[in-house]
């Protein structure tokens, strides 16, 4: 599943970030990289999501959300 398919309240583990290399590095610098556990805190307009990474909150637009592949925490 990707982040766009998640709901507020979900806790998910990032599996893959399907962005260009430079942007993938920036996401990693912000804490969004494979292995990261993120909390989906809000649903924004047009399919965007707000996620909690540690104590930080980041807003992602819908196009970015569909490129961030995640799995529910606890899933294999």
């Amino acid at each position, binding site marked *: 599943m990707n982040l766009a398919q998640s709901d507020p309240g979900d*806790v998910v*583990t*990032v599996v893959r970030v399907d*962005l260009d290399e*430079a*942007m993938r*590095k*920036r*996401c*990693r*610098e*912000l*804490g*969004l*990289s494979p*292995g*990261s*556990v*993120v*909390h989906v*805190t*809000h*649903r*924004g*307009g*047009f399919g*965007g999501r*707000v996620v*909690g*990474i*540690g*104590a*930080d*909150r*980041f*807003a*992602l*637009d819908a*196009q*970015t959300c569909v*490129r961030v592949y995640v799995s529910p*925490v*606890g899933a294999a």
Partner: protein
Amino acid sequence: MSCHDAPEPVPVRRSAGPTTVLDEPRVVLVGNPNVGKSTLFNTLTGARQRVVNAPGTTVELQEGRWRADDGWVRLVDLPGTYSLDARSPDEQVAADAVREARTDLVVLVVDASGLARSLVLAGQVALVGAPTVVALTMSDVARTREVAVPPAALAARLGVPVVAVDPRTGAGVDVLARTVAAALEAPHALRLRRTPADPDEPDDAERVFAWVADVLAAVQPEPSQRGAADGTGRPAQPVRTWSDRVDRVLLDPRVGLPALLVVMWALFQLATTVADPLVSGIDTLVNGWLADAVRDVLPSSGIFSWVPGLVVDGILAGVGTVLSFVPLLALVFVAVALLEDCGYLARAAFVADRAMRFIGLDGRAVLPLVVGFGCNVPALSATRTLPHARQRLLTGLLIPFTSCTARLTVYILVASTFFPGHAGTVVFVMYVASALLVVLGGLVLRRTLFRDVPRDPLVLALPAYQRPALRPIALSAGVRVLAFVRKAGAIIVATLTVVWVLMAVPVTGSHRIAEVPVGDSLYGRAASAIAPVFEPAGFGTWEASAALATGFVAKEVVVGSLAQTAAVAEPADPSQPGDLASRLRATFAASSGGHGGAAAAAFLWFVLAYSPCLATLAEQRRLFGLRWTLVGVAAGLTIAWVGAVTVFQVGSRL
């Protein structure tokens, strides 16, 4: 550059007194966006600061002087950045400043509530090997989020001094001053210690990430505190803050958009209704009382009878114009800074992102564009909230197409004169046309001159809501208004003086200097020379050209200019044009071969699309440089002329 074994930097110079600026050590403030860096800068420097451009760029920096213990230092507030691996011109300026040899010390502002993210930047500063002191901010937010960072533990791990500060209250800044003073004498650089996980990792980026995990594990031993950045994959317990609860409302699509519209409406009101009495007050003060007082003391007859005209109608009018923008700019600066400081601006950017992205703009561009419908000048200044220099420029080139209220008086006059039954509709159409110009302008610019601006995925940090720090905001607004008065003001006063001279010098008839009808002046002659250019648009008269040339200076005076050239009194209410209406109808009918309505519509289009006013151009030049200002003027005139000709040619055949 990678510095496994960076040499210990040499001791730097310090000045003993407040006057030896060149010898003062250069200290730069580096940190992520929204960590209180600029608030710290304002708290440290107070009023001893100015706005400067980073060399060779349009990136604005604030530079000031700070008394660090017993010596003065030059403090530079760098653009906020997440990384020294820059993704925008602003981030590049920050990265370059850290690497520059003339930087004596880096004060790295570390966000205690987002330690992992701040440590990534710290790791990159460590690779550079610059002498560093860490200022630890947001400790209160970190405690709320149950991720407190003990400064001593962090200092032990980083190997550089760590000082907890609260930029809003000033708590800790005395200790920071002493620490910076000591570090300038005996500098320490951050070092990346080899980590057990990656003892021989050759890749700098991987070394930084490994080091961050190592430091986090030492400073915040509980995995739940570290969040996700520890890379362990273990679930952390979500902490729902009151910011989350507010965001549940403000980011909800059903509430977020109306809330943004209310904020935009309030900003618009601020730039118009609230600012109007202040602007009028300054106008009365300068062009009324002061002008009268100056006239009283200057000679009114004899060979110097033109002097009062030059001083009052030229120079003083220019000064009045500049000063009239002061309350407007101050209000908008403060309002936008409040929105930014309290954390709402990032939410506005998220809510507006989809619409702004459609025309290739950053979501944050929505506020400057809305302010532009009130007045273009503060709108340009408000672009400073955009974190990317090219995005600021792109937005700054589109702002002149937002129809400011000064243009409204022209619309009302022309619409009431030529389309008396449909004046309201005509004015509405002008605003729709303005919005379309912004949209189309954005689409075209993104596909031509701005192809280099990346369409980055939106990953936007939402800072916690907080109470804005009023004193630093007031200081910053004051410094920026002063920068406008100094730099843009000189251009405005000089140009208005030149316009006065052109209007005062007679070229035909037997008139004395400064007592010449416009038609007989150098200005009138120039307008006559330009007039044929507008013949294809149906208003190729010297009167229309003179009014448009005056409108280049300020749209407020177009109605007055039309009245002056028609030799009638300026109507107090442009919707009741009286004698001016019949004169205008006659002039436009004559110049358009009987298609006065089509010529009037073409004239309206021209007024909408060409350069709004001198102050806007002066501010564009200050922010973006002369070249881009000229590009904007040329584009505006081209769009205005081509559109006006099209409107007239089509309209006259209907």
